[in-house]
């Protein structure tokens, strides 16, 4: 666990190397071991000082998140969390007040609790590997650094620099960490321990933290100096502007620093302990941890991969269509070391698709994130072509051509004529049912949907769609590819719009319903942001093109004839289409887009949809927007399009920005409690239409007092 070697010069090297784990995680056992070793050697006059380092490639990743999640259970008493915090605080304190200088030799990534351990050392030296990350990213899990991180960082750097890092959860590479003051030295990896020994033997070795020196003053001054007040006022506003009051963690971090630096160090630790415990127990942190950490990590490890099928990494990928999607998929595949054949009908277009990658790579090199050789090698993997013969030895082909069944059928045939019988053919369609598209295939068992999101290089999700005849082997192949390109997969069954496209349309439609009812458009858009959505529904449909939304409606009308009755929301889309307000690309939609920026809601909306005298409460609007998606997601679970609540939550968060603090639409139902959710949906259905009618499954769960994830229902707020 924590090996101790004392050399001839009296330097004790403590090497953290947890058995049976690929990475050190900071837990009670680590703290116990540290205290034990310090106790054993600190009083020994022959020991000059300590080096703390790791026996793993990374220094330490942080605390055990699943353990934190368990601690957040409402049944765990507050005092229990306080006790655990005290153990951490005492170990850190023992380290920094043991009377001997302690140096952290940071051989690899040190994040969260790992970096907090380094903060309790008197000196920090990091190896010069640019892949190493240093920082306190707890905020991204809805938490704060509860091992003294807020107190030591603020005292080390001052209020403003510490808040900037803590609130963003910034991770820095060694050079940047040195510039920011997170570490004191960057040394060649091979020289790390020697550098640590040099410091311990040198004149600068000190065994007292700055904040334990009676003459110490907080760098930059306290929160009630002129600069401090300015910092706090600004930070308080900015956090609200960014989080729309949905995330308690950044506010708790602000308070830890604001309150903590006004009191002695140990009192600051106590303040941090309180806010940390408050966050651990918050429904927001539990939702975020469940969906974006525990379940996302399981998805990334391919929990949904059919068992008993050997790994099938893609060696050579064919892409049909070098538009935005095809080019983006080509880029991420080439980055993952996969050879790419980028095919289009016209060589110039295929070349343009490759140039898309060149542009991204150039930017990466210019920013210093990539070596020029790596960029060149990546680009060299992409082969633009017009010849289907070039697909011959591809083991996976993804078509990203126009959303037109006939065209898709034609390219399917042309491709299958070239590729191996075992190769998998995937369609990147965002709405067309896979089973229908597979009818054009000679080998429908090898036919699958892989819905990437735009822009591919930025969006982390891939929605895998399983057609009626898609084989387990094809699912495994698709999932292996998603893992190769380091994206997060969800697996859904076939249906029009699958999961993400169908549910996000409910959001847009609810926005249109609200507008048609005379709700102020500003209220609709702001309520969406207050609910935690990244953009309002009217803004979103402007971005995704109103003409596209119109064509989907028009297609349904054509398919179903007079039987198809337009909803009030669809009327709004049709009206906007008829007015020629087709969205952002056309320069006008629900918003006006004046030249030189400064878009604003189209004032003419007030004439088209006169605002009603009585406006609904903002909470009601928020509820309608979030519930319209949640109830439809539940319906998809009932319809077996979705087979797993985790897929639903991950897909919603990463596919269309469903608010992370809710944990996703299914976590939201758990959070408010099935019974309460069903009651609200029934009320909304009576007031606004059957689209809110809860599926039978939810009513049954409510009656049986069940929840999706098994945690206690109804503990949070809606």
């Amino acid at each position, binding site marked *: 666990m924590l090996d101790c070697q004392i050399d001839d010069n009296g330097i004790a090297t403590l090497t953290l190397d947890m058995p049976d784990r690929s990475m050190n995680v900071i837990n009670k056992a680590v703290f116990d071991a540290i205290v034990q070793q310090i106790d054993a050697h600190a009083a020994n006059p022959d020991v000059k000082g300590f080096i703390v380092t790791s026996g793993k490639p990374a220094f330490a990743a942080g605390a055990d998140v699943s353990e934190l999640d368990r601690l957040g259970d409402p049944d765990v008493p507050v005092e229990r969390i306080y006790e655990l915090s005290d153990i951490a605080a005492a170990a850190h304190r023992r380290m920094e007040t043991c009377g001997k200088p302690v140096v952290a030799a940071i051989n690899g990534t040190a994040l969260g609790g790992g970096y907090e351990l380094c903060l309790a050392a008197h000196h920090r030296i990091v190896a010069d590997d640019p892949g190493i990350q240093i920082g306190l990213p707890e905020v991204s899990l809805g938490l704060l650094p509860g091992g003294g991180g807020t107190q030591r960082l603020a005292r080390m750097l001052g209020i403003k620099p510490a808040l900037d890092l803590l609130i963003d959860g910034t991770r820095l590479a060694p050079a940047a960490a040195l510039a920011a003051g997170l570490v004191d030295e960057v040394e060649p990896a091979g020289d790390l321990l020697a550098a640590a020994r040099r410091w311990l033997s040198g004149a600068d070795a000190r065994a007292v933290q700055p904040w334990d020196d009676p003459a110490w003053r907080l760098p930059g001054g306290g929160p009630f100096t002129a600069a401090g007040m300015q910092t706090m006022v600004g*930070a*308080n506003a900015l956090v*609200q*502007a960014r989080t729309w009051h949905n995330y308690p963690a950044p506010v708790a971090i602000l308070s830890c620093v604001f309150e903590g630096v006004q009191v002695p160090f140990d009192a600051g630790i106590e303040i941090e302990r309180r806010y940390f415990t408050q966050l651990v127990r918050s429904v927001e942190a539990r939702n975020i941890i469940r969906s974006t950490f525990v379940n996302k990590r399981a998805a990334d490890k391919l929990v949904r991969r059919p068992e008993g099928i050997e790994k099938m990494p893609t060696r050579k990928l064919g892409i049909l269509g070098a538009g935005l999607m095809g080019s983006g998929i080509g880029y991420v595949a080439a980055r993952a070391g996969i050879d790419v054949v980028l095919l289009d009908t016209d060589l110039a277009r295929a070349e343009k698709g490759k140039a898309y990658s060149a542009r991204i790579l150039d930017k990466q090199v210019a920013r210093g994130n990539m070596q020029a050789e790596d960029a060149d090698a990546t680009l060299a993997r992409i082969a633009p072509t017009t010849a289907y013969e070039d697909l011959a030895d591809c083991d996976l082909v993804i078509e990203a051509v126009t959303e037109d069944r006939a065209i898709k059928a034609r390219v399917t045939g042309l491709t299958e004529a070239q590729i191996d019988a075992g190769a998998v053919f995937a369609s990147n369609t965002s709405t067309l049912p896979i089973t229908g598209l597979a009818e054009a295939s000679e080998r429908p068992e090898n036919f699958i949907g892989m819905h990437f999101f735009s822009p591919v290089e930025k969006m982390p999700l891939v929605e895998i769609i399983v057609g009626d005849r898609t084989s387990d082997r094809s699912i495994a192949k698709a999932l292996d590819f998603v893992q190769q390109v380091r994206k997060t997969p969800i697996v859904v069954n076939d249906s029009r719009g699958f999961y993400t496209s169908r549910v996000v349309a409910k959001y847009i439609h609810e926005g249109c319903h609200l507008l048609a009812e005379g709700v*102020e458009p*500003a209220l609709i858009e*702001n309520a969406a942001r*207050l609910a935690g959505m990244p953009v309002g529904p009217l803004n979103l449909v402007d971005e995704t093109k109103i003409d596209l939304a119109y064509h989907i409606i028009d297609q349904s009308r054509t398919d179903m004839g007079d039987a198809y009755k337009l909803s009030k929301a669809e009327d709004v889309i049709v009206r906007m289409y008829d007015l020629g307000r087709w969205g952002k690309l056309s320069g006008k939609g629900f918003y006006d887009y004046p030249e030189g920026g400064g878009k604003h809601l189209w004032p003419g909306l007030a004439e088209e949809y006169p605002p009603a005298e009585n406006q609904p409460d903002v909470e009601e609007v928020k509820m309608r927007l979030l519930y319209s998606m949640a109830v439809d997601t539940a319906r998809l679970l009932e319809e077996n399009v979705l087979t797993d609540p985790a897929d639903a939550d991950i897909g919603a968060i990463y596919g269309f920005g469903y608010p992370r603090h809710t944990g996703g639409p299914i976590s939201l139902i758990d959070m408010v409690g099935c019974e309460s959710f069903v009651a609200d949906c029934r009320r909304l259905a009576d007031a606004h239409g059957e689209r809110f009618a809860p599926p039978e499954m939810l009513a049954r769960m409510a009656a049986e007092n069940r929840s999706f994830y098994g945690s206690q229902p109804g503990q949070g707020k809606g």
Partner: protein
Amino acid sequence: MTEAFIYDHVRTPRGRGKPDGSLHTITAVDLAAQTLGAIKSRNGFGAEDVDDIVWGTVMPLGEQGQVLPRMASMMAGYGEYTGAVQVNRFCASGLEACNLAAAQVMSGQAQMTIGGGVEMMSRVMMGSDGGAYMIDPQVATTLHAVPQGISADLLASLYGYSREDVDSYAVASHQRAAHAWTNGYFDNSVIPVVDVNGVTVLERDETVRGNTTVEALAKLKPSFEKLGRDLGFDSVAIQKYPQVEKIVHLHHAGNSSGVVDGSGAVLIGSREAGERLGLKPRARIRSWATLGTDPTIMLIGPSFAAEKALANAGMSASDIDLWELNEAFAAVVLRFMEVLDVPHDRINVNGGAIAMGHPMGATGAMVLGTVLDELERREMGTALTTLCIGGGMGIATIIERV
């Protein structure tokens, strides 16, 4: 209940609240002492004639710290007998001081009191007292705290006031103040401020620009745009007022209350105490009220406080002859006139803080006196004085001539 009467009031001229302002070289305690001294000498108090002084100061720290009126009264030659208390209700402190002074009289616990205040804004910076409101993250985020200028722009955005609306109002304030000075309406109440040798350093309000125009004001840049947009305060406000798409920034130095130095005092006592001193009561304090409204929009308190004070007096808005609402920001007055249907020619008839400035601790006492002078000049009966207050509060006091 004993009735409380206003017997007299004085105020200093208001000096520009900057290092080049004419009052900048005068200490806060000296300015307060000159004010208290003037009201003492005009009314001929003996050593034990005044029971208590209630004194407003919004930044009670540094030279304005401790209980400033206790030192100031003794420096002004009051006897040791006269007590003093310092109060803070943000911008309404001066009027709050008068109400609390009146309350002592009305409850029969004091006979003759002084309400007033001082603020040397050029010497003790606004905001230098810190406080939890904007700075403590728990408080600031729970209350959606925004600076007042953002509140004023939110108010204008919510009720659709244009830049021309607010600038026109500001021009009227300057014109009215200039007209009042030209015609001597303030002469009886404004005392000159002198140096240690008795040489006058200021005798007229320093920031009045009677010749300003809407065109001239149109050139000024909105003061709170950057704060709102770049620091995120617009978003904080909109999260409380989601029906607002965008905060339109209209307020600037020319249509907001000026930062100035100044002091004012109002003599308040019972009928018997006045008779003992041979003083003639000028007005009766009919009622007052304070209350709170949403702290984010912050500035809508006056109409609610006015209604509450009217209810306390058993009166209605139509009973009020003249209105005085502190011109914190132009939009505050525009909104008030709209809500209570008050015509422009009955409110702030001699200008207000946009023209003459708003020495925070003193303003309430100053405007109470100003409107009394004007009631007398116009031979009218009743007036309502009101101010918007930080944190969303409002205050109103109704007086009637006797």
